[in-house]
């Protein structure tokens, strides 16, 4: 009897970890998708992707605290600001001048950009973690012994809707298909009459939107802090590679996998090494399936 009770308890625990893991994983997936899209269309490996999530959260919070705006209005304004800063300015000022020099200079430049954004947030906003409002009222629901928060469900719902919308956009609309064509072969796309420059710009804007959404979802849990980007960025690109560097679906799978793995290993194995398990997964995947779990080998750009 006691054994059975214990067994159900273990099950409930595992289920709970799974749900919260999937929900954080879904947020990682959003950042990872943006990362993958940038890589596909321009060959940009954005080492500042984590800071790209951190910055909108700080801007949003500044609008809420200093501008007195309600969170959702602040979100809408931040979406525009992100589009300008992380989309247009990033493309024109950082990626465009450097991409022709090859991958390494741009890698270094995005690392420097990450430092720049971190230090900027620390200097001009705050060097301490700030509480961030929940986008939906915080309710704890209980379903058959498993407790779920409204925030987890909200994250999951937003991520699912966004991923489906993105899939539909990329596969079902003319613009989206043009974007994919550019991602696969920019020269051929140009010959076919696709406005490559516009598509590339569009990709940067999509990335800016994705990180802004990721920011509003992740920050209520992580709190708004200038050095948040490190953990988020690392997880996002582990997710991107594990899933397959050239697939939106892959990034989703990777994000969820990493989120769940992190949760389980932290709970059952060791909190100190919680970041180690996704890394080991990363190394194994690169060693044995370098094109990722869902990636196709022929698209490998090696």
């Amino acid at each position, binding site marked *: 009897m006691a054994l059975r009770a214990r067994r159900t308890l273990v099950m409930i625990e595992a289920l709970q970890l799974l749900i919260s893991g999937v929900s954080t994983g879904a947020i990682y997936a959003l950042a990872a998708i943006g990362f993958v899209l940038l890589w596909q269309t321009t060959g940009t*490996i954005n080492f500042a992707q984590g800071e790209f999530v951190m910055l909108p959260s700080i801007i949003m919070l500044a609008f809420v605290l200093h501008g007195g705006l309600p969170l959702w209005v602040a979100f809408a304004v931040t979406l525009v600001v992100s589009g300008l800063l992380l989309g247009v300015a990033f493309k024109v000022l950082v990626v465009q001048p450097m991409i022709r020099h090859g991958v390494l200079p741009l*890698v270094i430049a995005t690392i420097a*950009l990450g430092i720049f954004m971190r230090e900027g947030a620390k200097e001009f906003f705050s060097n301490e973690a700030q509480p961030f409002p929940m986008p939906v009222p915080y309710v704890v629901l209980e379903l058959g012994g498993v407790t779920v928060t409204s925030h987890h469900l909200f994250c999951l719902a937003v991520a699912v809707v966004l991923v489906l919308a993105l899939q539909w956009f990329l596969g079902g609309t003319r613009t989206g298909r043009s974007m994919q064509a550019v991602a696969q072969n920019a020269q051929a796309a140009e010959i076919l009459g696709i406005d490559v420059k516009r598509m590339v710009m569009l990709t940067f804007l999509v990335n800016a939107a994705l990180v802004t959404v990721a920011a509003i979802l992740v920050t209520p849990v992580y709190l708004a802090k200038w050095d948040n980007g490190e953990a988020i960025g690392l997880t996002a690109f582990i997710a991107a590679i594990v899933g397959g560097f050239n697939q939106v679906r892959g990034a989703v799978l990777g994000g969820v996998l990493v989120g769940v793995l992190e949760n389980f290993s932290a709970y059952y194995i060791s909190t*100190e*090494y919680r970041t180690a398990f996704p*890394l080991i997964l990363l*190394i194994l995947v690169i060693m044995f399936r370098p094109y990722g779990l869902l990636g196709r080998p022929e698209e490998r750009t*090696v």
Partner: protein
Amino acid sequence: MGTMRWIAGGIFLALLVLLPRELKPYGIFLMSNWVLFCVVAMGLNLTLGYAGQISIAQAGFLGVGAYTTAILTTRFGWDFWLTLPVATGLSFLLGLIVGFPALRVQHHYLAFVTLGFNILIYLVFRNEDWLTGGAFGIFDIPRPGFLGVDMRDPLSFYYLCLVFAALMFAAAWWIVRSPWGRAFAALRENPVRAASLGVDIRTYTLLAFAIGSAFAGLTGAFYASLLEFIDPYPFALEYSLSFLLMVISGGSATLIGPIVGAGMVLLLPEWLRFAKDYYLLIYALLVMVLMAFCPEGMVGLWRRMVAAIGRRRARAPTERPT
């Protein structure tokens, strides 16, 4: 050009020897730190610049050497000099292991794997308290004596570091000019062609990592002794990125590039201290500007300038008659 180079080298060496005599202890510390980081960057330059294998784990390798010496000297009472072969050997071995993925993947994939290894190494430093002292680190790491001469004061330790760096520079110079160096370059330029010419790609790829790592590990021993106290933080991922920056900003695949780069990356933030809290902001901005306008680094910039002057000189006489 040849004599000019020797003269410039001589002046530089004289500065390295004489300048620290005029500096305060912190200045001497910075100079020591710089000459050591030059060696670490030289090692990465062998892996990245000459052999073309991206490695973002150099700080981790440095840490392995530093912790080896720290643990052996403080816990087991080993003499500093005896720890050197162990530090070198361990980092060489680890470099081999990290090099294995390079046999399967290249470019950005390799960047990610090596970066992953760096974080794993860092996590071990931070979490294995019984071995590394965890976040508190290891205190009272001794400075070595040499043939009975006491090396504990900052200036003589600096000279020790300088001699060490000079020897390692000679080693790097020798490696680059040896058949190994040529094999590395072949590997970088065209692995398939190199293989068809009989270069054993497997061995040389692994060697490129292992030698680069051994440079860092051996330096780690001196670094631990310089700091006299180590904790995990100087061996975190961001410092590997700094070493990468040193090689690229100085000029990769050149012998003096890492020296220039290490100077810039290490000393620039110090000079920017007048900007107080904004110095990292300015620093990051400068790095981006450098990458935008001169991705081949300072040595590349210098060469371009020399070439431009040379062209003007060549043109001048032919223009006169018209």
